[in-house]
């Protein structure tokens, strides 16, 4: 029965049987489904070594815990629970004296909100009152927030950046650890990314450009664009994204967006405060290019947010662009 038919050799059925026995891998050389065997062996050896280090440290840890921290920890936990109960009761009593939910006569529904709503369309031209508020009346607040994002990006760069030239060894370690637990050229992910990346980037641009007409704006749209870029990077690797999202591009985009924001809004505030004629007009409410500076400021904020999110991801993943 086991005599092999010459027709059978090399037929799809034989491949199927071999695949079922685990002798044949149809995706060998084309699709990587698991990390290479050598890396996994190194992983296992490292785990063995780790357990020794662990046992050594655990002894010392338990000793130290018993001696120094044990008593303090118990008091600390008891105090924390007491604090939690106290805080809960205090805040609940406070809440019980607040005006009821949805009450119109609550003190925060005062003439400021009324002024923003009644004069907003006329003065800013934005259909979305919140966008008109945060990007026109309170634009410097939003400018400070964009700067907070920029500073956070700088801090993450400072903490996690790996210098390729000065430290080739840790760059190699980063490259290797980046490949751990992650097969390259995942076809499912790549197909999904081919469809979803353009969609999410276009949707992000739509949300940014319509920030003054509909819900959304620079923050959410920028985050959506950043997520699309992150998806593309996850599917196709650093070689593809590194071609256009370079460090230089991100730096230029972020700094020029912040500078434009600062100067444009300074001009608008200066002319507005001194009752000077200004070429910024509210325009026709509802059109894309209306609402004065709000569209451009939304674009600036969107650029800053998208670059920041992308930089966070690359820094966390590999320590370089």
């Amino acid at each position: 029965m086991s005599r092999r038919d010459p027709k059978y050799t090399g037929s799809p059925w034989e491949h199927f049987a071999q695949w079922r026995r685990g002798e044949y891998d149809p995706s060998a050389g084309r699709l990587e489904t698991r990390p290479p065997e050598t890396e996994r062996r190194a992983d296992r050896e490292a785990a063995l070594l780790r357990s020794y280090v662990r046992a050594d440290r655990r002894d010392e840890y338990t000793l130290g815990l018993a001696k120094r921290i044990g008593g303090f920890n118990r008091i600390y936990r008891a105090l924390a629970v007491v604090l939690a109960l106290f805080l809960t009761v205090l805040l609940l009593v406070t809440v019980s004296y607040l005006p009821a939910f949805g009450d119109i006569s609550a003190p925060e529904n005062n003439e400021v909100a009324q002024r923003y709503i009644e004069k907003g369309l006329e003065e800013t031209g934005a259909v979305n009152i919140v966008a008109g508020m945060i990007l026109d009346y309170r634009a410097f607040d939003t400018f400070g927030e964009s700067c907070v994002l920029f500073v956070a990006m700088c801090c993450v760069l400072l903490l996690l950046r790996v210098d390729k030239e000065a430290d080739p060894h840790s760059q190699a370690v980063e490259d290797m650890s980046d490949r751990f637990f992650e097969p390259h050229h995942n076809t499912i992910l790549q197909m999904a990314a081919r469809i979803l990346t353009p969609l999410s980037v276009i949707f992000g641009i739509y949300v940014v450009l319509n920030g003054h007409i509909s819900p959304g704006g620079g923050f959410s749209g920028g985050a959506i664009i950043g997520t699309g870029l992150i998806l593309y990077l996850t599917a196709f690797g650093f070689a593809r994204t590194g071609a256009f999202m370079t460090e230089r591009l991100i730096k230029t985009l972020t700094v020029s967006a912040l500078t434009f924001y600062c100067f444009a809004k300074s001009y608008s505030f200066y002319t507005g405060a001194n009752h000077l004629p200004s070429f910024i007009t509210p325009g026709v409410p509802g059109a894309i290019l209306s609402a004065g500076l709000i569209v451009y400021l939304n674009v600036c904020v969107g650029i800053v947010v998208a670059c920041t999110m992308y930089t966070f991801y690359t820094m966390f993943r590999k320590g370089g662009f």
Partner: protein
Amino acid sequence: MGGSIFTNYEEITAVVLFVIGLMDLLMQSNLVKKIIGLDIMDCAVYLFLAAKGYIAGRAAPIYVDGILDASHYINPIPAGLVLTGIVVSVSVSALLMALTICLYREYHTLDLDEIMILLRRRETEEVRRLTRESGEGGGK
């Protein structure tokens, strides 16, 4: 006790979430759980603010059908404040995560108690080494 404790569900939830987040910060020794606790505290504050801006029976603050009357829309100010806060909180937690990765590189653990003990041990060794060196220097 005032009377509105039975209607302010959002505010009560905000209080409970705030305390849960604070307890995460105080009691958990894992750094990642501490970061999540801080995020939960952020969310509690935003929920409180947005609940205070809500007015029953009114629409979202977007002009519809050219109605400019203030009696049709909810209070937009808390929404603006919270919008600012959400994005700041994500950059804060990204910064905390970067610091956590740095700590993990140095101490190979996420447990704050363990990090404190390793730090203390390292300090003791350093002090011992310094005193030994200075003692040898004084002996000569």
